[in-house]
C-alpha cells in the first residue's frame, strides 16, 4: 500500500464524509418522521425541529376509529398514555393492528428458511469441497444459475404448484421457497469457507478412527463456525427483505412485513409517521447486522468470488 501525502488524505476524507452525510439524509429522515405527528409530516417547508410525538408508533400498532364528541365524553378517563394520545385525536383504540403479526411472520419465515438453507448448504458445500463429484463445475454453475431467474418468472408456476399442494399463503411454503432461493448463495459462500480449512485436519481425525461424518461434525463444523454465521446472516437479510414472492404468494396468514408496510393507511392517505415507524423497526435489525458483518460483506455480496 502506497503512502499518500497528508493533504490528499484530508481532502479524500472530506469528500467521502460529504458523500456519506448526503447518503444518510434519507435514513435520518425515516427515523425523524417516525416521531412526527401526521400534521408535521406533511407540513411545508419540511420540519427538521419539531416536538417529538409517539403517535406514529401508536398508530402502527393499533387500529382506531373516530367517535362523536358525545361518545368520547361518556367514556371513563384513559388508563394509559397511548389511549390518552389516541383520545386527543377524537378516536378510540379498537384493537391491535396487524403489524406485530406481520413482523412475527417475517421473523418465523426468515429464521426458518435461514436455518434450512444453511443446513443444506453446509452439507452440499462440504460435499463439493472434499469429494470428486462428477460434473462438479456444471452442478455448481447450475446451482448459481437458479439465482438468475427473475422472481416474477418463478412466481407464475410456483403460484400454480402451491395452489395444487395447498402451500399458498403458508409459512412452510414461504420457508421452502426462500430456502431454494438462498441455497445458491449458501453453497457458494460456504464452499469458499470450507475450502480454506486444511484437509489434513479431517484426515488426521479419520486416521484416529473417526468416521467421515464424525470428522465433518467434530472437526470441520467448529472450524467453519465464522463462515457459517456470516452466511446465515446473509440468508436472513435476503429473506427479511424479500418482497415479490411475499406480495404474490401470501395474503392473510403468512404475509411478511415488506408488502404490509406500504399499505399502512391513515385518514386521507398513507399515514406517513406510522409508515416511517414501521420502516424504522423493520430496518433497524439490518443496520446492526451490517455493522456486525462488515468483515465478510465483500465475500457475501459476490457469492464468494472476491475474498480480499
Amino acid at each position, binding site marked *: 500500500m502506497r503512502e499518500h501525502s497528508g493533504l490528499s488524505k484530508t481532502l479524500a476524507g472530506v469528500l467521502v464524509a460529504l458523500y456519506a452525510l448526503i447518503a444518510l439524509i434519507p435514513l435520518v429522515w425515516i427515523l425523524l418522521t417516525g416521531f412526527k405527528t401526521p400534521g408535521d409530516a406533511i407540513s411545508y417547508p419540511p420540519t427538521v425541529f419539531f416536538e417529538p410525538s409517539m403517535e406514529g408508533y401508536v398508530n402502527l400498532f393499533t387500529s382506531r376509529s373516530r367517535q362523536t364528541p358525545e361518545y368520547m365524553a361518556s367514556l371513563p378517563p384513559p388508563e394509559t398514555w397511548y389511549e390518552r394520545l389516541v383520545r386527543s385525536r377524537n378516536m378510540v383504540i379498537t384493537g391491535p393492528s396487524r403489524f406485530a403479526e406481520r413482523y412475527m411472520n417475517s421473523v418465523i419465515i426468515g429464521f426458518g428458511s435461514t436455518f434450512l438453507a444453511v443446513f443444506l448448504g453446509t452439507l452440499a458445500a462440504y460435499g463439493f469441497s472434499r469429494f470428486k463429484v462428477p460434473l462438479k463445475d456444471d452442478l455448481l454453475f447450475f446451482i448459481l444459475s437458479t439465482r438468475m431467474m427473475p422472481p416474477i418468472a*418463478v412466481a407464475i408456476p410456483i403460484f400454480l404448484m402451491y395452489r395444487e399442494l395447498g402451500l399458498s399463503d403458508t409459512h412452510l411454503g414461504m420457508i421452502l421457497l426462500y430456502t431454494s432461493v438462498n441455497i445458491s448463495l449458501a453453497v457458494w459462500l460456504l464452499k469458499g469457507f470450507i475450502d480454506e480449512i486444511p484437509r489434513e485436519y479431517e484426515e488426521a481425525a479419520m486416521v484416529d478412527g473417526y468416521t467421515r461424518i464424525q470428522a465433518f461434525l467434530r472437526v470441520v463444523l467448529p472450524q467453519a463456525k465464522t463462515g457459517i454465521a456470516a452466511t446465515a446472516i446473509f440468508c436472513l437479510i435476503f429473506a427479511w427483505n424479500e418482497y415479490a414472492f411475499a406480495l404474490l404468494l401470501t395474503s392473510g396468514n403468512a404475509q411478511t412485513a415488506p408488502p404490509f408496510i406500504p399499505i399502512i393507511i391513515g385518514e386521507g392517505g398513507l399515514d406517513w409517521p406510522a409508515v416511517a415507524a414501521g420502516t424504522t423497526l423493520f430496518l433497524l435489525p439490518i443496520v446492526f447486522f451490517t455493522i456486525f458483518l462488515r468483515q465478510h460483506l465483500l465475500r457475501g455480496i459476490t457469492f464468494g468470488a*472476491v475474498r480480499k
Partner: protein
Amino acid sequence: MVAWIFILPTILLLLAINIFPLIWAIVLSFTNYRANQPGREVKWVGTRNYERLLSSEDIWGYLQATAHFVCWSMFFQVLLGFGLALLINRQFKGHATWTTLILLPMMLSPAVVGTFWTYIYQPQAGIFNYIINFFIDAGTFSMIGEVALAPWAIVMVDTWMWTPYVMLICLAGPRSIPDYLYEAAEVDRASKLRQFWSITLPMVLPFLMLAVLFRGIENFKMFDMVVELTSGGPGSTTELASINLKREAFEKWRTGYSSAFAILLFLTVFGLGNIYVKFLNKVKER
C-alpha cells in the same frame, strides 16, 4: 458415493422448487391457460404466445425502459463507486467508520425503501424537492409524477442504494496492486494520470466488471423498489420488464402469454450473462 449424501438434498430441493416449475412454465408458454379460470379448457397454441410477444411494440417499450434503467444506474454507480473506492483507499483517518456508514443503504429492503422515497419525492412536503429548491429555484415539480423525470427518479434511488456495492467490490482492487509497480512508475517519471491509466485502472477493471455483472443481472430483474416507488408510471414510462410481467401474469391473468415472456426474459439474462462472463475472463487473463 458418500458425496451424494451431502449434495443430494440441495439438488432435490432445487429440482422441486426451481427446475420443475421452470419446465412447467415452458409447457404453459405454449398454451392459452389462464390461472384465474382453472375450469376452462386448455388449448395448445403452438408458438403463438412467442409470436405475439416478439411482434408487440409495447414489449419493446418495456425493454427500452429496462435498458435505460440498467445502463444509467450502472453508469452512475460505477462512476461514484469507483471514485469513492479510490478516495477511501487513501486510508485517511476514520475511513473504516465512514465506509461502514456508506454501506448501509444497500442492505435494506428495496420495497420498503422504495415506499419511503415516494415520501421523500413528494412535491410539497418532500425533503428532496425542498433541498433542490434551496439551491435552485425549480418551483413545484414531482420526480415520480412527470414523464420526463420519473425514469431518472428510479435511477437515482437505485444509485443511492447500490453505489456502496460497486464501491465495496472496487475497494478490493487497489489492494491487489503490488507497490513495486508504482515505484517502478515513479522511477520512470510516469505522471500520476499515466499511473492511473496504466496501473490502477487495468488492475481494478476485473473487479469493476464483476460488480457490473452482479448489479446488471439484479437490475434487469428489478421489481420491488420500482413498483413501490412509481408502480410503472406515469403512463408506462417506468414500466420495467418485470413490472409488466407481473401485470400480465397476476392482474390480467394471461398465464400462457406471461410464461412465454418469463422464459424470454430468463433466456436474455442467461445469454447476456454468459457472453459477459466470457468477456470478463478474457480481461482477467490479459
